[in-house]
């Protein structure tokens, strides 16, 4: 019986181990390369699945491109839904007729313990109302606004009667599609007095609403410390932390399903960091909280050129909150026109309202009152401004069909 002999069997003995070793090393090398290729495949799939190469495009972002398509009343609402609002919850619905637009708060889109007294909801609705009015003027409507028109329905926040008039284009209107919250770093270039004055002037025709600027290094440091402290308090509060995380959209599927909320694209990250965040598995709530605190400490407060605080006489008056929202939107649009970035920093007011509703000792209210030193005025909302180190990205928006009755 003769067994089959291979070429390797016939080789001299001293050559066999070398050949075998080479073969073994070749297989190991190929295996290693295959593993690397498989890893590249996983990364490629994550790039595809999480929209790394097409951030800010697709149906959730279409409202930013088509907001001027409709010349009628529906077009005013198309502008309204691009407004700033709390956690991008888009807490609004609209009823549209040829001569009237009615705006309602959507109770299903509240942000829970972060906004227990609905001040932020009313600010967001005020922002939307401002965009709506700018769009109405540009489209040739004279708008007659009635705030909180129905005593029995606190969700009915505004009625806007549209009467044919002259077209009144405005630079603020034109800035609507370019206005985005910028959570990235700002440069160390100061915002000029001229720009601050232009932003302050936006309050001229709004009663009971003012903006107070915090520009000195000492005041900025004190306000920044208060923001960091409030952020720590929020993430230590399980309910507030959960309510905040509920609005975070971790991946492309979530964005396309909900078309709202906070996204990785809107966190102001550098391109490489953003890609890594999208390729790696979604972060947990606690990891997200730690990231927010770190960003607040190392980016938001450290690079703020100035803080603005909008104040009112009575934060429990929804009309003043709506007007405060209108002013905030105007300031944001005017800042955009001047190449200045803006980000809302509502941690302190979030904690003030949380302490009020849980009947715990007020810690933040007296501290900010002392900082502002304006008796009779109450802080409604705060923000930071500065020249952006990198541009902000679009946030997802629900289409008109989803927000009209």
């Amino acid at each position, binding site marked *: 019986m003769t067994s089959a002999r291979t070429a390797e069997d016939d080789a001299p003995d001293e050559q066999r181990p070398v050949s075998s070793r080479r073969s073994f090393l070749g297989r190991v090398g190929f295996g290693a390369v295959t593993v690397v*290729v498989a890893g*590249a495949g996983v990364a*490629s799939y994550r790039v595809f699945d999480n*929209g790394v*190469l097409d951030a800010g495009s697709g149906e959730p972002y279409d409202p930013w491109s088509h907001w001027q398509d409709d010349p009628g009343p529906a077009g005013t609402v198309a502008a309204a839904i691009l407004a700033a609002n709390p956690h991008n919850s888009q807490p609004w619905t609209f009823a549209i007729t040829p001569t009237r637009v009615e705006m309602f708060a959507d109770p299903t889109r509240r942000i829970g313990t972060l906004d227990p007294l609905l001040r932020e909801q009313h600010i967001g609705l005020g922002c939307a109302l401002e965009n709506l009015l700018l769009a109405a003027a540009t489209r040739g409507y004279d708008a007659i606004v009635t705030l909180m028109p129905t005593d029995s329905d606190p969700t009915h926040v505004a009625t806007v009667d549209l009467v044919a008039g002259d077209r009144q284009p405005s630079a603020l209107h034109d800035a609507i599609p370019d206005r985005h919250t910028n959570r990235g770093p700002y440069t160390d270039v100061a915002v000029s007095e001229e720009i601050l004055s232009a932003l302050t002037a936006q309050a001229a025709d709004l009663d009971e609403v003012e903006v107070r600027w915090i520009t000195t290094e000492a005041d900025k440091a004190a306000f920044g410390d208060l923001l960091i402290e409030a952020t720590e308090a929020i993430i230590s509060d399980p309910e507030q932390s959960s309510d905040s995380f509920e609005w975070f959209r971790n991946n492309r599927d979530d964005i396309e399903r909900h078309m709202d909320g906070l996204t990785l694209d809107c966190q102001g990250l550098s391109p490489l960091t*953003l*890609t890594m965040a999208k390729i790696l598995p979604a972060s947990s709530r606690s990891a997200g909280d730690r990231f927010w605190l770190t960003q607040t400490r190392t980016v938001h407060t450290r690079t703020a050129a100035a803080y603005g605080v909008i104040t009112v006489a009575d934060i429990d008056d929804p009309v003043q909150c709506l007007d405060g929202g209108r002013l905030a939107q105007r300031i944001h649009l005017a800042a955009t026109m001047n190449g200045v970035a803006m980000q809302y920093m509502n941690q302190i007011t979030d904690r003030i309202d949380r302490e009020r509703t849980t009947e715990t000792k007020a810690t933040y209210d007296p501290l900010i009152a002392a900082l502002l030193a304006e008796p009779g005025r109450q802080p409604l909302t705060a923000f930071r401004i500065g020249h952006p180190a990198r541009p902000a990205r679009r946030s997802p928006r629900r289409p008109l069909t989803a927000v009209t009755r």
Partner: protein
Amino acid sequence: MTSDLTTSRAHDSGHLAARLGLVGAILGMVAGLVQMTVGTRIPEWTGAKDDPVALGALTVVLSAIAAVAASRLRTPEQLTAQRRVAVVVAFIIPAVLCFTTVGRLWYIPAALLLAACALTAAAVDTRDLFTVVRRNRTRWLVSTLGAFVVLMAVSAAPALTLVLGVVGGLAVTVAPWLPRRTKPVVVVTMLMAALPFAVITWWSIASPLVAVLAVIIGITAIRGNTHADQAILTTPRTLTGTR
């Protein structure tokens, strides 16, 4: 006598595989068209996809490739092992992938394509097919990397980036299989195909990584020993008794 019998069986299996593959591919194209046109109206059948038009179109394209592969099985002459492997791949990729594109509509096409795939592979000595796969493993890796580029590119914007990525990815997929006598052309094709998309999407991390791997492995594949490959690539081997 044994050779004739084996050849006859292979022939019969090939024709059955061709019929099953063709029917599966046609049903697959129909499923894709249904997804594109009325996919949103019958989400329980089509998988409630966010982008039914694109996924339906992808299904049609992949099914069409399977149809072309099925038609190759109907030729009277025996396929080389290399081409038989290509047919198997052309059946199995849509059969598996399209479960994620058209939902339940894919159940019947998938069953037919998988059966065609099994018959195609079983019609000859499968060791020949494995030999083809083994000897061309670096080429398969490069083609896989090309597919990764296409996968990333189809989600890219703007359109120029998308086109650059898809064309480049397809070129990377095909390049290792070009005739070896055109080695310089293949190398240049590989570089031209892989690098531009990687450069304009550098921040995606994955696309530069894939491009570097494709170029390195691709050039290695092209420079590899050709003698042994040529025999298996060009000679039809369908008889079980030839080993």
